[in-house]
């Protein structure tokens, strides 16, 4: 009888412990998204959050090859898109790199003890945009000219919003 009681108490303790751990984990995850970033204002990422936690690297890697070899940019899985949305402002209001200490990528990767190589080459802050200013103005001029001839589709907006990497 005493034995049964002890196991019941142990099981109950284990359950409470597991629940507490879940709460702590959930709290951690909430903390990774930086206040003031665009991501904090959105309810969800480009895919369901649970899926992104486990598979974001696969999506980014797939997009990487499509971009480098096929020239497809500005899709929802681009690394530039991740950075653009998850970069948060520092105390001075300037954006802080997503791979800086306590920022989105770094804090979670440190928790998971996984090294991240993206930022050896890519900057953790959006900079310069998909097109330089001169290229954008040339593109605008060309599109205007094309519209005059009646064969452009007026897609400057998408080019400006696109996040190429």
């Amino acid at each position, binding site marked *: 009888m005493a034995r049964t009681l002890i196991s019941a108490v142990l099981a109950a303790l284990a359950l409470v412990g597991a629940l507490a751990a879940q709460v702590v984990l959930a709290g951690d995850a909430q903390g990774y998204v930086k206040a003031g970033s665009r991501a904090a204002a959105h309810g969800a990422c480009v895919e369901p959050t649970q899926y992104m936690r486990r598979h974001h690297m696969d999506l980014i890697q797939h997009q990487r090859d499509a971009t480098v070899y096929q020239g*497809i*940019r500005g899709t929802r899985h681009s690394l530039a898109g991740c950075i653009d949305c998850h970069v948060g402002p520092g105390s001075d209001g300037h954006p802080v790199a997503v791979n800086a200490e306590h920022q989105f990528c770094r804090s979670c990767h440190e928790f998971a003890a996984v090294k991240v190589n993206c930022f050896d*080459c*890519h900057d953790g802050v959006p900079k310069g*945009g*998909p097109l330089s200013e001169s290229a954008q103005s040339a593109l605008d001029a060309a599109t205007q000219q094309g519209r005059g001839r009646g064969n452009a*589709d007026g897609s400057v907006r998408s*080019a400006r919003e696109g996040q190429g990497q």
Partner: protein
Amino acid sequence: MMKHPPEGIDQGRRALLGVAVGVTTAVVAPGLVLHAAALPSAAPPGAQRSGPVTDRVRWGLLIDTSKCAEGCRACVDACDRENGLDLQTRPAGQSGRAWADQKAVWIRKVKLADDLTGRVTNLPMMCQHCEHPPCVDVCPTGASFKRADGIVLVDRHTCIGCRYCMMACPYQARSFIHEVTHDQLTRVPRGKGCVESCNLCVSRRDQGAPSTACADACADAGHHAIVFGDLKDPRSAISQALTGLPNRQLREDLELNTGVRYAGV
């Protein structure tokens, strides 16, 4: 004694083969035609690419050296700004001369002087975007590759930094990044241990912009020495200019069929 041909040729067999060929053609041909029709056509100006690059275009440059001014660096400076090359910093303790040799450069201004006649020619040298690029031949990992639209570039995710391509390039067009980099532009990532070179402003190509930074800057400076365009489109400005202007490839003896052509050298 001559051997006689067999008397009765089996006509039934021929008929069967004929029918088989006809049926195969009928089955396969519509597929081919539909496939060709489904390929995306050249994007209108200002359209961001949604499908993969195709070999229906081949990007190239024509450089008219007679219009290239001595001392002008408009194209080099524009390239530096466009591709974040001006953001490179000299490592502490390195001499200015060593840094000038080592830092990444995509366009070099070259001055040719004929000793006999004294004629001086100026020209910008960059990756020549060969049809048969030696850098791609020698790359051990396949990182150096030619995109379908003729742009030769490096997939820095697979580049191991062996610099074999730099040795193979007859135009000395490639640079190696020796130090850890910071503050890269979003459109031009750059990292230690990889090789890079002119990519004909590949992010501009993918966003549908009409020209390259160097060609724009040259036109803005009033020289109009650089023409950018599609070598496969007979109506493009570059094709028209190539038809009208005597021009050549540099080191044509190597038979690389370069995408960058020079007039007046």
